[in-house]
């Protein structure tokens, strides 16, 4: 049977917009060392290393090769996995699978991005650039995707622009309590509402930053967990799902323009959560979950995900704002870390969602700790409609 597994350590660098003083390898090593320290383990107890990032963002082919010197992979098993923005959660799901075989003692998963070394814009553009569909492709930025979600929410009267700004302030407040977060600055509702428009109703302050940093997790099967950890975050379930029905081939992108099946991104997020709920008998997520981390590439997305993962009824997101339910002291805190809106080093972002839930379960959240966390959910979303859902518990 499959082994029960737990996260026994989490490590992160401090996230910034630039880190010219360290190489990519040195930066990754910081997260690895932090994870080992957090788990009170040495690299000797690790027997597999799984790495993930976006190849063209730093221009590294088979980056796990060069990184072997700093990732700890030397003479250990492992390989690289990559999807889109969900790369970090794909690494986690891979690590969880490996751990559940019981064939390994401890597995290290690493997600990172050093966006100060490349041109993220050009690398992102390469997603949809096409020789044959050579016109009209530049309109497909992440901002366009979020705009369509935002417009839809406004039409449905799910949320007001002011409420979105209030949620953005919540994200900033949480980030200020998280020493690792990138944007740690107090902002006001007025500042958010007066920030420049990107594509109405989307504003600059709603969007995630371009960050540099790395995240690492250590996962072990039960037998090893009992030996090495007195504070494991048990990974009860995980799932990964891909939702694009018609890929961005050339200029055709119904992926987020309204399709007969709705925006695909949202669809995969909802599916990921639904699978986890169904398999784990969760019928009232707002009540049964103590903390939630979502992949909020923009403030609007966080709010859309509230509905998609059933923290409230459809069109009722505004109620969660009115009740301040998703605030740190609310009944269902979302993104105590400050979320992707505060920190976005792409390859690390999705892993940080899972890592933060583990941190909360382990009671290591410091100023941002949510009291009495027994069970938490992380849901991620990334380019080409990849999503993952991970359920983490204090005890199984």
């Amino acid at each position, binding site marked *: 049977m499959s082994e029960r597994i737990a996260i026994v350590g989490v490590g992160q660098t401090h996230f910034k917009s630039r880190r010219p003083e360290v190489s990519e390898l040195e930066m990754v090593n910081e997260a690895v060392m932090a994870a080992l320290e957090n788990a009170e383990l040495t690299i000797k107890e690790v027997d597999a290393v799984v790495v993930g990032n976006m190849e063209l963002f730093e221009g590294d082919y088979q980056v796990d090769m060069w990184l072997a010197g700093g990732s700890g992979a030397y003479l250990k098993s492992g390989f690289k996995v990559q999807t889109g923005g969900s790369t970090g959660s794909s690494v986690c799901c891979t690590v969880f699978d490996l751990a559940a075989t019981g064939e390994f003692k401890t597995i290290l998963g690493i997600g990172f991005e050093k966006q100060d070394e490349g041109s993220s814009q050009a690398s992102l553009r390469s997603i949809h650039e096409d020789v*044959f*569909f050579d016109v009209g492709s530049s309109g497909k930025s992440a901002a366009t995707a979020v705009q369509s979600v935002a417009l839809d929410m406004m039409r449905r009267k799910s949320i007001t622009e002011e409420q979105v700004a209030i949620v953005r302030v919540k994200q900033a407040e949480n980030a200020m309590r998280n020493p690792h977060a990138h944007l740690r600055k107090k902002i006001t509702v007025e500042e958010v509402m007066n920030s420049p428009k990107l594509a109405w109703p989307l504003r600059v302050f709603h969007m995630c930053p371009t960050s540099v940093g790395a995240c690492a997790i250590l996962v072990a099967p039960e037998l090893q967990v009992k030996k090495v950890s007195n504070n494991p975050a048990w990974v009860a379930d995980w799932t990964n799902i891909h939702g694009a029905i018609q890929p961005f081939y*050339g*200029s055709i992108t*119904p992926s987020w*323009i309204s399709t007969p099946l709705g925006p695909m991104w949202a669809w995969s997020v909802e599916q990921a959560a639904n699978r986890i709920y169904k398999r784990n008998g969760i019928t009232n997520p707002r009540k049964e979950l103590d903390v939630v981390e979502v992949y909020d590439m923009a403030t609007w997305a966080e709010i859309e995900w509230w509905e998609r993962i059933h923290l409230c009824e459809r069109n009722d997101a505004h109620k969660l704002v009115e009740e301040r339910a998703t605030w740190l002291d609310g009944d269902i805190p979302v993104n105590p870390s400050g979320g992707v809106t505060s920190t976005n080093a792409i390859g690390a972002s999705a892993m940080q969602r899972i890592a933060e839930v583990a941190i909360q379960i382990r009671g290591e959240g410091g100023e941002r700790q949510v009291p009495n966390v027994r069970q938490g959910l992380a849901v991620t979303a990334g380019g080409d409609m990849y999503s993952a859902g991970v359920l983490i518990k204090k005890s199984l």
Partner: protein
Amino acid sequence: MNQKAPDENLCVEQIIELPFNESAGKYISIFLTKIRDEGKIVANKCPVCHRIVLPPRIVCAYDKVEIEDRPENWVELSDKGTVTDCVGIDEREVDTITGDFVGTPNPILFVRLDGGDEWTILGHIAEEMDVSKYPRGARVQAIWKPQQERQGKTSDIQFFRLIRE
């Protein structure tokens, strides 16, 4: 000698240059040849769900079955259609290597072509710069380049122009 932080943060500038010779493959080649030689937009139709797939593909992503290259599976779409979304280009992207602007300054149009279904949306550019002229539901038509200038790319269509019906 003990290590101290270096006085400077050195870096290496690198440009990765990869030449590609991409084949469009069978289905996209049919699509592009029709554009180039006949000024027609073709799509294909899933034999199971009858969804129309634009650009044509060998497989229906939804049903995961092959859309065989048979006459009954091909559909010719009109070059007229309805705007579903229009996105203005507020800030033009500059290529970090060449310093040139990327793409055209024209707004990006998503056009649901007549003769298809809710899936047959083509992304292209609008003739005029004013986004507000292209509200959802506006009717537009493709303006083709002259036959001799067409190369078998979607840019063989110059842009979409508003039409009155």
